[in-house]
């Protein structure tokens, strides 16, 4: 693979994570458990979609097919999507959404923190501003993980269930292939394997504080979102998200 393509593919993974997760969170808009939380979830969704936009814009600079950001979002098939499986999981109840988000937020904060040292000036300055958002997101979701874990019996059971379902999916944040290794060795993007242990330690401490049990099963090697092998959930997201744009090919909006 030529460098341009490597760079494009590597950035696409992180743009897709944020696009798909932002989309998922936006499904809550108008349906939150309180007005305050409705607003907060939309805020996080907006930040993630904003981050996705910047990373997509950076990625297409070296897209050999010269696609626009909207081409990538609205006219790419499911097999071309490169997000981790975790972010395409359905919202479930508020506990599921919060836990999925917390796992991502910790990862995102570590990733952005490290991205500040990228050799690419645009990416490092993006990382500096996005890091502030990520820190705030993590503070918000972490406080909810603790509140739900240590709240009522019902809230504890709900978020405990989310822990056992989602923890094994976190494996994919740190899995690496040739693309990741090459962009890391060039100093473009962080080496995610480096912060796997930090992520695990921090999450374990939060679970402890939230009086939650560590899951029995902690990883599954079957996930290949980074290679474009997705669950049926992403297919549903794309058929909805792309429906209007695809019904009017060539139209501008």
């Amino acid at each position, binding site marked *: 693979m030529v460098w341009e393509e490597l760079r494009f593919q590597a950035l696409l993974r992180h743009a897709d994570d944020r*696009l798909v997760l932002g989309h998922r969170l936006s499904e809550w*808009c108008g349906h939150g*458990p309180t*007005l305050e939380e409705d607003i907060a979830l939309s805020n996080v969704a907006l930040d993630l979609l904003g981050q996705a936009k910047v990373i997509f814009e950076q990625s297409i600079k070296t897209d050999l097919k010269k696609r626009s950001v909207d081409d990538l979002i609205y006219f790419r098939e499911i097999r071309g999507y490169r997000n981790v499986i975790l972010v395409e999981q359905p919202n479930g109840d508020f506990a599921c959404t919060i836990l999925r988000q917390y796992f991502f937020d910790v990862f995102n904060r570590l990733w952005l923190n490290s991205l500040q040292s990228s050799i690419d000036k645009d990416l490092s300055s993006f990382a500096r501003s996005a890091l502030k958002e990520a820190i705030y997101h993590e503070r918000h979701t972490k406080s909810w993980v603790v509140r*739900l874990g240590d709240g009522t019996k019902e809230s504890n059971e709900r978020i405990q269930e989310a822990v056992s379902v989602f923890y094994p999916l976190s494996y994919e944040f740190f899995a690496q292939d040739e693309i990741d290794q090459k962009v890391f060795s060039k100093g473009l993007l962080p080496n995610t394997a480096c912060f796997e242990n930090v992520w695990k330690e921090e999450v374990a401490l939060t679970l402890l504080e939230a009086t939650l049990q560590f899951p029995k099963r902690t990883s599954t090697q079957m996930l290949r979102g980074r290679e474009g092998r997705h669950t049926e959930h992403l297919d549903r997201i794309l058929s909805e998200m792309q429906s209007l744009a695809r019904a009017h090919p*060539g139209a501008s909006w």
Partner: protein
Amino acid sequence: MTEASRQFDFEGRIARDEKIEPNDWMPSRYRRQLVRMISQHAHSEVVGMLPEGNWITRAPSLRRKISLLAKVQDEAGHGLYLYGAAETLGAEREDLINRLLGGDARYSSIFNYPSVTWGDVGVIGWLVDQAAMVNQTMLTKCSYGPYARAMIQICKEENFHKRQGMEIMAVLSAGTSAQRAMAQDALDRWWWPTLMMFGPPDEESPHSSELIGWKVKMKSNDELRQWFVDLAVPQAEALDLQIPDPELVRDSKTGHWISGPINWDEFRSILEGEGPCNRERIESRRESHFGGAWVREAARAYEEKCRKKKALERESL
């Protein structure tokens, strides 16, 4: 001070255009009417999130997705702000919401219409938010301080929403023939319901004269409706879209655009709960509110645990 002299004092303040503030004395009916109006307004903001929220996941470009999500989020913020204004009058948010969910409180009739195309997103921003803004611009002068101040903030955002909606319409109108048809169809469906948003004609408006006397409302329903029509007609022309009213004419003496007759039977059926979406709008709010009860309960339980823990720590010091 006797009740009568308090009343006299209150009326004097209204006459001098002074603002009434939360701790000031006010007639209980003034208070009740304001709670009714402000909470109805708050409910409208929250229920109003649903028709547009319906399109967030299908917005046709990333830019549109982000701006629509931000817009609908603004409406949630308005709701929060308005519930806060109602609380300054001694109402509880939870009670107000329960009245909405129990079918005892109203919200704007407009949100009982379905939003079935992307054109509807444009027309809601352009016309519905503009109609809301006409009403709210009047309310910035309202005699109750917290409500008037909430309106100033909200109007700024609604103006932005209106421009966003008009821009969506302009792009559709200048787009492919399918997009143009989408814009015209949305205008055809939303025009008359938007005119009904200002409420029944003056001779049938039950609360108007009292509210105008208290300077809660500064203009009548028909005056506001006329103000809106005069704004919207030239905008439709600029957008190259046809307002679906064959009788619409300009009065050469006054310069006002005069509409044809409004189908008030349709308005009354909507208020009686027979609109196309009345049932599902309330059902959706009920699902979110009751479905989220365990979350609110958990937050309360956790807060209580923290409070006890702190108290224990203090004792052991």
